[in-house]
């Protein structure tokens, strides 16, 4: 599973990376062909309603999704993990307050928050990533916290405390390494969710500007031309988004199975 997921993801990453050398057209250029041309030898994936080459847009279009998801995962990681570590290690009122806030966010439909924040920040990759990150920080926090609470009481941590190690030494040298496996799983799932949320935000109209090729945007704008029979404008980007999200999900599921020996028999 992990291997399959990795293959899919890296294939898509490579495809996006080498797009400038292999794409037959400028993906944003309008009227390179007739409008809404069905797939043909000249335009293997057809053209959009503005006569853009669909194939080139597919090749280029993953970069926004990848950037957004990578960035949001990074932000989540950088905030969620230290916060979870610290809060659960310190405990007490601070921990309770943090948990309360995090639980409130966690209990709420994430997309609503993402939409509100996205509308507040405006368009762009960074803003999109931030609004997605806010929604997923709680997952990191909760996972880390539950792990730390059990690790904290283990003998070797007690021992480290006993020999007078500083709190940050204990946290990062003794506690953190034990949390890593769970974080890795959350991270990959987060990647998949971020891709889907980014597509959702674009669908609602909070995506990137129109001159940047993006699968999410093509999927959304193709919707209006469905009743005229132009299936190719939404199908190809849709399949690509599914592939990308599937790749991440497979990695995540595979890892969690490897790391969760409960189900090995």
């Amino acid at each position, binding site marked *: 599973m992990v*291997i399959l997921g990795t*293959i*899919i993801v890296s294939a898509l990453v490579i495809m996006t990376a080498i797009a400038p050398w*292999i794409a037959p057209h400028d993906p944003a250029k309008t*009227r390179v062909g007739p409008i809404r041309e069905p797939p043909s030898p000249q335009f293997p994936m057809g053209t959009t309603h503005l006569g853009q080459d669909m194939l080139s847009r597919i090749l280029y279009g993953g970069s926004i999704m990848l950037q957004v998801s990578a960035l949001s995962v990074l932000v989540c990681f950088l905030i969620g993990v230290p916060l979870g570590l610290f809060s659960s290690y310190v405990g007490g009122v601070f921990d309770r307050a943090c948990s309360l806030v995090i639980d409130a966010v966690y209990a709420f439909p994430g997309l609503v928050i993402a939409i509100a924040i996205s509308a507040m920040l405006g368009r762009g990759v960074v803003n999109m990533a931030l609004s997605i990150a806010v929604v997923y920080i709680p997952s990191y926090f909760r996972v880390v916290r539950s792990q730390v609470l059990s690790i904290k009481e283990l003998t070797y941590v007690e021992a480290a405390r006993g020999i007078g190690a500083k709190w940050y030494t204990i946290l990062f040298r003794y506690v953190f390494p034990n949390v890593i496996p769970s974080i890795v799983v959350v991270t990959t799932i987060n990647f998949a969710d971020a891709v889907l949320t980014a597509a959702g935000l674009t669908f609602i109209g909070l995506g990137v500007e129109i001159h940047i090729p993006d699968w999410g945007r093509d999927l959304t704008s193709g919707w209006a031309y469905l009743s*005229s029979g132009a299936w190719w404008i939404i199908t190809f980007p849709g399949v690509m988004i599914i592939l990308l999200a599937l790749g991440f999900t497979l990695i995540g599921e595979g890892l969690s199975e490897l790391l969760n020996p409960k189900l090995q028999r």
Partner: protein
Amino acid sequence: MMEKIELSIVVLVLIGIIVSSGTMYYMTTVVDNLSTLTDDVSTLTESVTNLTSTISDLALIMSEGFQEYAEAIAALTARLAAIEAGLATKETLIVGTTDSVEKTLDPAQAYDYFGWCILQQIGGTLVSVEPGSPKGSDFIPDLAVNWSSNDDLDIWDFNLREGVTFSDGTEFNATHVKYSFDRAIALIPSIPEGAPAGLGYDAIIDRTEVLDTYKVRFHLKMSFSPFLGILASRSSTIVNPQYAPIAQINHTTADPRASTPVAFAGPYVLSKWNRVAGRDVEIKLDANPNYWDLASGYPRMAHVIFRFYSDAATLRLAIEAGDIDMAYRHTSPTDVLDLEDNPNVKVWWGTGAAIQYFCFQTKRAPFNDTRVRVAVTAALNRTAVCDTVFLGLSDPLYSIIPPGMLGHTEAFQKLGDANYTLTTSLLAAAGYDATNKLVFDLWYESSGHYPMSAEQALMYKEALEGSGVITVTLKSADWAGYKQNRDSEIMDAYIYGWYPDYVDPDNYAFLYWAKWIHTNYYNETINGLPNPSYPAYLQQVALYDEARATTNITLREELYAQIDEIAVEQCSVVPLWVGSGWAVTTPPIYGVFLDITQDMRYWLIYK
């Protein structure tokens, strides 16, 4: 080119092969023994058999109950068929729309297309534009039978129709006219977003005087020739004082009679109006039993029912399926062109009056330089946008006054379309060339307030950059943010649209210097320095005021042409395109008028 296509196909195929071989590898390694498959299938069949036996038991128990249901269904279907048949008679018109009334049907506030449309069906004005009037300047009597004005065009007299009653039976007279206008003006301070404020009633009308039971006089603050146009607009709908308090707007609730000053004097009355979450879900109009023109056979249909679709695609499916008699406002250009080939529906084409225009922020570089504005204007490609984005259903516009209307010219043709020679030479003079390009932000609205904004912006960017001396950065904001940006004047160049309040060039020409567009073109000084465009602006306003004060059509045309001429030299606001109107019906439907007023007069439609 073909090589690249082949190359990319090869890459895609490779990815496909990698992915599928990965899947195969995975499947074969995990599933050690294919023979388990048969076991699985047998277990599955077993569970399915279990399930079916349970279901059949259940079915046995419930079959009695179902029998009762079946009888009930039969009875109901028969009854419903009767009702449906009743609806399907020639008495009812079912209209599908994607519109919704924005806030209210009170003429002192309503300022949206659909609100005005419903108001027109249920309300009466002193005069109306004759259906099909080519320039929208032929007026016919409505609640007034005849009228006159003095030579200065600042005193207007109207003789009212006698024997008209409101739909609740109240007799209509001159006091109602005075009341309606007094109320509209009195409410302006508290409802500055309403139509009377937008049309400037307080700036135009000084006072209204009752001369006799059926005679009323308007004293205007200025000589104003388009006054009839304003009187024919929806914000001049005569209200019934009983339902329209002088100091208060009526807002929407489920009960139309409690929420709108409905006792108007139009061909229809509002009999049902339901809203969910601020959107219409049900509107029904019934013929007004007291309508003054019943004798001539109007309204032609006893009932009009509006059905609300949330997007153009669903509306298209509905008209194709025959669920509705008429789809109006709005099927998309793509869909309407598709539907034209469909023999089961009829597409009606009409004159459009909705326009869009390009605005420049003139208070700072680069667009404080008139040459730069003209250069950018010359590089625009209206034709490409109209052909590609609107599929030919919009026409390039070279004057702020749309074609079909008095005073329309082709002035901006002078600068051409994608006229890069002019662009490069002008920009060279202003200090820009291929190495030192002109760089600016082009903003568009992103939440669907205007049709296809993003696509248009993309094509303008492409055309402008095609000159080789311009770099455009696209930026966007949703309607709320866009308006805020406009008012805080942070956008270099932006696209706006206009929809007429009344059909007269007077309602268009001022867009060149409208203060609410915030171009700063109209200011005497900019950043403490004299504005070089200011004399041109003064000249335009003088011409505009002169055109307002005359009914001489030749003179007015001449004056508006001069305003356009100056606008081409200044390029503060640049006309882009004018849309066209269309409606789709399932035959046989007759009496659809799609003229330049953009009004849909449902009382003229018949089957």
